[in-house]
């Protein structure tokens, strides 16, 4: 039967070429779209996790409510003890404290007067402690453009573009003007050890990175931190495990309902990521439904045209005793063959393009230069096992639907009138 259908399809190209091309196109676009959205979302999740959210994050309850403003007056206290508890209770994660803060970087002239100022987004990390995961998480060694990483107290990194705008380089003095945890003015001198570029517009616009002990001193935050980030060791974000970890921590530490009690949230619960990921899932689904619908309509029309052209063939087959059901099923089987072949070819093309986009990516830096979301400038597609099968969903579904609808006409042919039709 299959051989019979294949012969028919190969010998009569007008029967298979348009449906095949349609399925190839639809499947390829589905695979590319799926891999691209997958890659973009992965970039957002990974960049966001490394620079901002962690896979899970512990803050005070009050801080969590206003997390977008990084309110250090609501920071966690007793961070060393809390980090030790986290490391003991959840050893599968690396735990690292951070402080984010805003302010101005003021560059003095020879007389100590302000030469130039610029707003800065500050990040205090566990930078100098041997064994700290931060260098790897932020890929700091590769991010250095000029100078080196801070090795001594009082040294900081500035984002390279920001340092260039301020006209400073390694060795220069930069004064941070900010506010302490209690709201007092901070005017503290630092030495620029080096400049960095992360390829993340939100970080490269105007960032300052310093060691957390230096910043605790500057911001009057002894043994405090705005947040403690947790990362699954050597593995990407796992939503279910993150949810279980947060539930276990909050269950064990939920007895204290005070506003400064610790609260753990997952990556999904921060910065609207849950909404964004749900939106991405909806986009996948819509994309699939759209391709299935469009391809079904095209294939239905192709089927109708084919039915007109094969009007005589169907008549003869019915006259020879083939029943309507068998004819209808053979049409659907034809569709399945075309659908499978088209999906396979479309998937191959889609995967080739997706692998290309995975390796080279698109640099969207100019579009993201004012973005507040933390995402890498170069967005890449991401090919996953699902990319290999996703193209078959619209490919097979559309051919089935198209053939099923267009083939209904077979049942309208009455055997008793066939002889009359042939006479005509």
């Amino acid at each position: 039967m299959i051989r019979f259908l294949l012969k028919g399809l190969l010998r009569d190209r007008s029967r298979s070429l348009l449906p095949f091309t349609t399925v190839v196109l639809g499947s390829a676009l589905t695979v590319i779209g799926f891999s691209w959205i997958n890659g973009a979302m992965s970039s957002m999740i990974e960049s966001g996790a490394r620079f901002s959210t962690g896979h899970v994050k512990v803050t005070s309850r009050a801080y969590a409510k206003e997390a977008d403003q990084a309110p250090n007056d609501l920071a966690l206290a007793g961070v060393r003890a809390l980090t030790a508890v986290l490391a003991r209770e959840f050893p599968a994660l690396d735990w690292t404290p951070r402080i984010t803060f805003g302010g101005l970087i003021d560059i003095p002239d020879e007389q100590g007067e302000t030469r130039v100022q610029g707003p800065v987004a500050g990040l205090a990390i566990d930078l100098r402690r041997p064994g700290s995961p931060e260098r790897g998480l932020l890929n700091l060694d590769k991010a250095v453009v000029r100078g080196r990483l801070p090795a001594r107290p009082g040294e900081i990194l500035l984002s390279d573009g920001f340092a260039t705008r301020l006209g400073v380089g390694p060795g220069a003095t930069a004064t941070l003007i900010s506010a302490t945890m209690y709201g007092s003015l901070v005017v503290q001198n630092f030495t620029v050890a080096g400049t960095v570029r992360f390829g993340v517009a939100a970080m490269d616009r105007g960032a300052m990175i310093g060691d957390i002990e230096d910043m605790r001193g500057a911001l009057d935050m002894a043994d405090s931190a705005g947040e403690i980030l947790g990362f699954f060791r050597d593995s990407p974000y796992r939503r279910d495990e993150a949810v279980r970890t947060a539930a276990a921590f909050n269950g064990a530490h939920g007895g204290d309902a005070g506003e400064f009690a610790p609260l753990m949230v997952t990556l999904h619960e921060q910065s609207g990521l849950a909404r964004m990921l749900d939106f991405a899932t909806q986009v996948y689904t819509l994309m699939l439904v759209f391709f299935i619908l469009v391809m079904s309509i095209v294939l239905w029309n192709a089927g109708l045209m084919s039915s007109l052209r094969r009007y005589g063939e169907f008549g003869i087959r019915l006259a020879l005793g083939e029943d309507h059901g068998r004819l209808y099923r053979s049409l659907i089987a034809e569709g399945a063959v075309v659908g499978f072949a088209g999906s396979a070819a479309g998937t191959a093309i889609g995967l080739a393009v997706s692998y290309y986009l995975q390796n080279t990516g698109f640099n969207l830096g100019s579009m993201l230069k004012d973005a507040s979301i933390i995402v890498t400038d170069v967005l890449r597609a991401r090919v996953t096992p699902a990319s290999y099968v996703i193209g078959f969903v619209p490919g097979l579904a559309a051919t089935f639907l198209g053939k099923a609808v267009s083939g209904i006409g077979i049942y309208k042919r009455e055997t008793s009138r066939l002889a009359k039709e042939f006479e005509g």
Partner: protein
Amino acid sequence: MTRPMRWWLVAAFTLLSAAVAAAAGAQAPDGAAVLRRVDENMGADNKVTTSEMIIRGRRGSRTVSSQSWIQGRAKSFTEYLDPPREKGTKMLKLEDQLWTYTPASDRTILISGHMLRQSVMGSDLSYEDMMEDQRLVELYDAVIAGEERLGGRPCWVLELTSRGGDIAYFRRKIWVDRERFVVLREERFAKSGKLLKTTEVRNVERMKDRWVPTRVNFKDALKDGSGTEFIVKSMEFNAAIPEHLFTKASLR
């Protein structure tokens, strides 16, 4: 009725009307006149004050003490004395400019732009509040909105609306002690009508020939906590202040 009698009646009525009008005027003077008296009481002498700010935040309270040398309305020099972290921090205000010096960085920084809206030492006072030196009557149109008693004191309630220009608070509502011309309570609003700050005077003392609020609670309506209490510990009027104090060189 005879003609002289009629004249007497007219004269008496005229006098009575004038007296009633005068009495009414005494009870409800012009808003600007009240504001002028408030400005006069606030004074513009040379003075040296020692004060404390008790800052009550969400994490508890802390006390910051300072000494200020003030010359008229345009010049002031403040040195923070305590806590140790703030000790030696100095601020110099000259007309519409404000510099701060911190010994840890040995830097003198001009506070300008959006930084003026920042809190002073984490209190409910902003640098902009500290910079305010113009007479209220020059900045605002005032109308008397009513009378109320506040802490047992009879007060005029004045509504002040900005006369324009760059001003921190577009509208204010003040409760002025009718006898002492001290502002006992104040609400400060943005142009949108949003309440930004309230002040409440908790103690007033007679010093020399004027009434001085010596304990004032400032509350930033946009911040948590129960506000900042500003306490005047001592105030010396007409003090001899060396002119060199009001120079940037004196900050270091």
